[in-house]
């Protein structure tokens, strides 16, 4: 792909983000008019900001990649990512805003008046934030590799440096405007090329077999294998090979591979004939991380699907960078309106990635083989349209992808750094915030360099699972159950969230590659969320004497509209 357009596009997005972050406020809000200056953020602007911060690499690249590789089952991802806001709207949004809490640890303290629970919640914010940052950096690395052939980790390093610098320098202050801008940028970057791609697809005779199994090459296609893979063939296949297959060197020879598993060494070039089926690659063989959670999904599809649904539906409310945005809403009703607008905006956006996935299955099926399926969105414009037009559209998509990494990563870094500065590092101050920012980014960056290869949407799914098992019980029970006690909340978060976290790290480390244990660990939400709720309820009931004294007044404040609260007698 021609990087002549893409690199400037990426650079432009980076520079624009930094500049708007640093100067946006000065330009847009300097006034001598109090009415203008004290206008609060309206629900729609705030919703665009939330969406901009929320739509990450997983949404922008990951969903299309998963749909490409695994077909329509993966449509549960966009559904789940969206429906999480429905749960948030119904159970959490307005009371959370009325609690006056800025972060999740604030909420824990406001509700339970307990420093230890606050610290524990802070620890989980850091954990979820790191798990979520990891795929952003990996996605950035992948994007840059696809665009320019740069080393894998370079893109991640660039995003890490830009985000750390802007956040630590106190930039991103007018963050609502920046993030709202990012949402529209991302939507444009997917929508405009999508329109062109659909036109191209129509011009191509509108082939409809996108989800017919298995995906097949529509024309002769050469595939370069960058990492050693094991190919599993269901039927014999004829390919032209330059490189090493099953330990034997070939040089541009036509080879008939019988059904079974074949090892393709790195650096091999395979040329498939028109119409041949795309073989399935098993990347666990080359000694790196388990490349995908596909194994568990294939074995236990129903369990995996429900695990995913539960994690995404309930995990959204515990995402640290989403929660802080609700503070910007002036009151509970506005928070609810904001959530409704978020549902609309995100719903619109999520129509597009599956489209890319389906087109990718038609026009770039070899991505499933090389393991770069996440790059489908980036490659399609070039593949389907080509020429300068394709390059320009590709550049637009690349810019949008970088907007996705930057916005989500900066929001997460702010949240994690805030917790590190406030609750972990010894004393407060600007220097410590900078230290916290560095630390917040250093850990996922190191992990992104060391831990390779989980598809970004899967990796984000794991962060959702931890969030759903720790914060969902805390928020839902904290808001709706008056008998919650500090020990109960702490135990529930530790047992639910802790076990989910262990399962997730085990999965990322590639511990059990197959079997039902793998499915249990790769999709922990289905058992860890009920476990978290159950522990929280049981321990709370067992420590009934520890219900915080002001609970009735606090819950009244959570649930009564502010206009009533003003005249409320002191409870």
């Amino acid at each position, binding site marked *: 792909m021609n990087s002549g357009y893409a690199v400037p596009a990426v650079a432009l997005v980076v520079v624009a983000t930094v500049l708007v972050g640093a100067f946006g406020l000065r330009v847009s*809000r300097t006034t001598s008019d109090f009415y203008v200056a*004290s206008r609060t953020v309206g629900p729609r602007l705030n919703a665009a900001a939330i969406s901009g911060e929320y739509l990450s690499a997983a949404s922008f690249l990951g969903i299309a990649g998963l749909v490409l590789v695994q077909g329509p089952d993966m449509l549960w991802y966009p559904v789940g990512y969206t429906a999480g806001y429905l749960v948030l709207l119904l159970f959490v949004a307005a009371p959370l805003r009325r609690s006056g809490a800025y972060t999740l640890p604030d909420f824990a303290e406001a509700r339970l*008046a307990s420093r230890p629970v606050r610290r524990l919640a802070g620890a989980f914010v850091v954990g979820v934030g790191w798990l979520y940052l990891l795929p952003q950096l990996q996605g950035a690395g992948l994007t840059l590799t696809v665009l320019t052939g740069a080393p894998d980790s370079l893109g991640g390093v660039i995003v890490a440096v830009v985000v750390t610098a802007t956040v630590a320098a106190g930039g991103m202050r007018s963050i609502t405007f920046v993030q709202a801008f990012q949402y529209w940028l991302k939507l444009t970057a997917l929508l405009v090329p999508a329109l062109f791609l659909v036109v191209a697809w129509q011009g191509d005779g509108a082939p409809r077999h996108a989800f017919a199994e298995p995906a097949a090459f529509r024309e002769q296609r050469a595939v370069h294998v960058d990492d050693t893979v094991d190919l599993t063939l269901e039927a014999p296949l004829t390919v032209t090979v330059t490189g090493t297959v099953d330990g034997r060197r070939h040089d541009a020879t036509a080879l008939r591979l019988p059904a079974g598993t074949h090892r393709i060494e790195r650096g091999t070039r395979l040329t498939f004939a028109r119409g041949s089926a795309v073989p399935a690659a098993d990347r666990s063989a080359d000694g790196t991380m388990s490349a995908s959670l596909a194994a568990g999904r294939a074995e236990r599809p129903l369990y995996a699907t429900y695990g995913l649904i539960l994690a995404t539906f309930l995990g959204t409310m515990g995402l640290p960078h989403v929660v802080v945005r609700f503070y910007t809403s002036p*009151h509970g009703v506005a928070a609810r309106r904001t959530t409704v607008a978020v549902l609309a905006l995100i719903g619109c956006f999520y129509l597009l990635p599956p489209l890319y996935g389906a087109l990718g299955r038609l026009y770039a099926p070899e991505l499933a083989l090389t393991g770069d399926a996440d790059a489908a969105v980036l490659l399609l414009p070039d593949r389907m349209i080509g020429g300068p037009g394709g390059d320009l559209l590709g550049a637009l998509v690349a810019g949008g992808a970088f907007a996705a990494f930057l916005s989500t990563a900066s929001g997460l870094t702010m949240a994690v750094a805030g917790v590190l500065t406030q609750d972990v590092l010894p004393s407060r101050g600007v220097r410590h915030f900078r230290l916290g920012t560095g630390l917040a980014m250093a850990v996922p960056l190191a992990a992104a360099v060391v831990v*390779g290869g989980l598809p970004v949407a899967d990796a984000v799914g794991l962060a959702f699972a931890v969030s759903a098992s720790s914060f969902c019980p805390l928020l839902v029970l904290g808001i709706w159950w008056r008998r919650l006690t500090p020990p109960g909340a702490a135990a529930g978060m530790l047992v639910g969230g802790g076990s989910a976290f262990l399962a997730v790290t085990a999965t990322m480390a590639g511990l059990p590659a197959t079997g039902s244990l793998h499915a249990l660990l790769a999709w922990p939400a289905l058992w860890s969320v009920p476990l978290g709720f159950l522990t929280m309820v049981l321990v709370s009931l067992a420590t009934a004497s520890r219900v915080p004294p002001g609970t009735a007044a606090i819950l009244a404040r959570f649930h009564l509209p502010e*206009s009533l609260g003003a005249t409320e007698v002191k409870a």
Partner: protein
Amino acid sequence: MSGFLAGLLVAILPLLAAGFWLGRRTARPQSLGGLGTPVEHATFQTLHTASLAAPPLRSGLTEETARKSARGLRSLLGTDALCLADEKDVLVWDGVGAHHRAEIAQRLAGPLETGRGEAFPLHCGSPDCPVRWAVVAPLTVDDRVHGALVACAPRESAVLVRAAGEVARWVSVQLELADLDDSRTRLIEAEIKALRAQISPHFIFNSLAVIASFVRTDPERARELLLEFADFTRYSFRRHGDFTTLADELHAIDQYLALVRARFGDRLAVTLQIAPEVLPVALPFLCLQPLVENAVKHGLEGKADKCHIRITAQDAGAEALVVIEDDGAGMDPELLRRILAGGGSPSGGIGLSNVDDRLRQVYGDDHGLVLETAPGAGMKITARLPKYQPGVHSGARLTPE
């Protein structure tokens, strides 16, 4: 393999962190154990037990604090059973023989009435009951009986009577301290109430004079100003809630400036730069308006030409950063320090030190005002307001758009 190792590392990190945290929390300086003679060692032990029992009692005598401290007190006395009671009932029974609880509760009435200790035998049906005697020592705060400490033992013992008396006196001291804490909190609350809403009388006179000057020449303007004045005083004198939102406070500042502008006309220019994210931040009521008032006063003082005031509110992570700048006469930093230290000043520095006091009381000592000034160089006042602070919530809804 490297992947597996990395995963393992990632998994171990949180465990390490948790271990570190637990270790730090539970670590106690044990190094004193080997020091000194056995007698000194026993003294250390006693003092340590006493210090462990003290913190719960510092928050007053309730069922929970009694429960938390009873065990420490019992080991301090070395008895088989100990109970703590308030004026009405037995709060907690630590140790054996809890079936005497009701009996003790009945016998307490006398000592609580007289405020004198008492020792009496316990009546028990079972022959092998471990406690036969009870020593009651009253807990007095300011000569008023607040409760009693009861130590039970198998037999009568003068040592126990003496020890119980001493421990009761020690507990009484803790309760007195709790009382002191309580009155300090009340004092702070009263102070906040007294400090709030001190709009200066000069401002009222000046505003009314300005409005009066417009009544003939420009009645419409006079009417508008009167309405602004009414709104501002309504905000200043409101009774409910100690906290407001930044948006409401800005609204009040706007009304204040409208009145000031009517007096000084074009001499006063104001620039605002407010990040909308921080508008919902809750803050102590009327804590920015005095700063603006101060800036206006200093900006126009001894200057014939224009004064420029700049108000910024920035979003800084978990805090809002509010800066109020003027380009007026400035001030000698030494003088300012004296004013803030409570020395008082002729030019009404009350406003600044008042705001500083309140911010420190609400948010803690590291959230006081930061002032940068020099003679002739204007003044810059910075306030850091946490977005969330336990107990701080505005209660009122932001003004609807």
